[in-house]
């Protein structure tokens, strides 16, 4: 059942990304280009996506089936990660959903972006270990 729901949600998500134009990097960069030839399409995409989800959250919370928030505080990780992600998003115009959705028609560079994105994801646990260093000895 969960596998079927995932397949259905993934398929509809992919169709929505394609229809909305979010697999086109020119549209995304046009949206981020607030000081240039600004393209407001992404605002309509976000707005359209938030409407059904707003009601879905209310329903899930009323039924008591809403998943718990994994973390609630505004951590340094959230801020630093969002800065890095935003920089990469502005650089190429792709975020994870559209990067996967465009794999069949994105050519070799699209595949290279996808592979680099997976490498970046895989790099987080070892880099985080470097950051925090070996566990401190207790005195």
């Amino acid at each position: 059942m969960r596998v079927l729901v995932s397949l259905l949600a993934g398929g509809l998500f992919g169709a929505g990304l394609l229809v909305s134009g979010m697999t086109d990097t020119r549209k995304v960069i046009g949206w981020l280009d607030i000081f240039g030839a600004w393209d407001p399409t992404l605002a309509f995409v976000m707005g359209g996506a938030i409407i059904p989800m707003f009601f879905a959250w209310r329903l899930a919370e009323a039924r008591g089936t809403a998943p718990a928030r994994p973390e609630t505080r505004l951590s340094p990780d959230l801020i630093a990660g969002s800065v890095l992600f935003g920089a990469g998003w502005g650089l190429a115009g792709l975020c994870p959903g559209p990067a996967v959705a465009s794999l069949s028609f994105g050519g070799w560079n699209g595949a290279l972006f996808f592979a680099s994105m997976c490498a970046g994801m895989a790099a987080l646990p070892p880099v985080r270990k470097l950051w925090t260093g070996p566990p401190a000895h207790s005195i």
Partner: protein
Amino acid sequence: MPLDWMMGLVGGLMIGTAAAIYLLLGGRVMGASGILGGLVDGSGRAGERLAFVAGLIAVPAVIVAVQGGAQTHLTSNVATVVAAGLLVGFGTRLANGCTSGHGVCGISRLSPRGIVATLIYLLAGAVMVVAMRGLFQ
């Protein structure tokens, strides 16, 4: 309203409906980076995650095969593609979410983390676009 905006709204409603199905029938938050990142990290529920990714690849592939003519307009500069991919992958895992998770699912839940993350990555993206234009034009 220009056609692009209409298509954006229709596509957005489809994305939101997909997220609603995932939440109400699957009991989970639909975040592309979380679903894919879990596969990369090997952190379980691989069947569900693979099914999601399979749908996400297959449906656009079929639509493009039938209609034809989809273009991503991704830059052909290899260094830019690799740098952007690494930043997006690392950043979304560090922030524990991307456009779908923090943007669509977080904002609609009125989650402070989702709202703050969205504002920050939009700002960082806008700064990067301006910086790139300054460098290359």
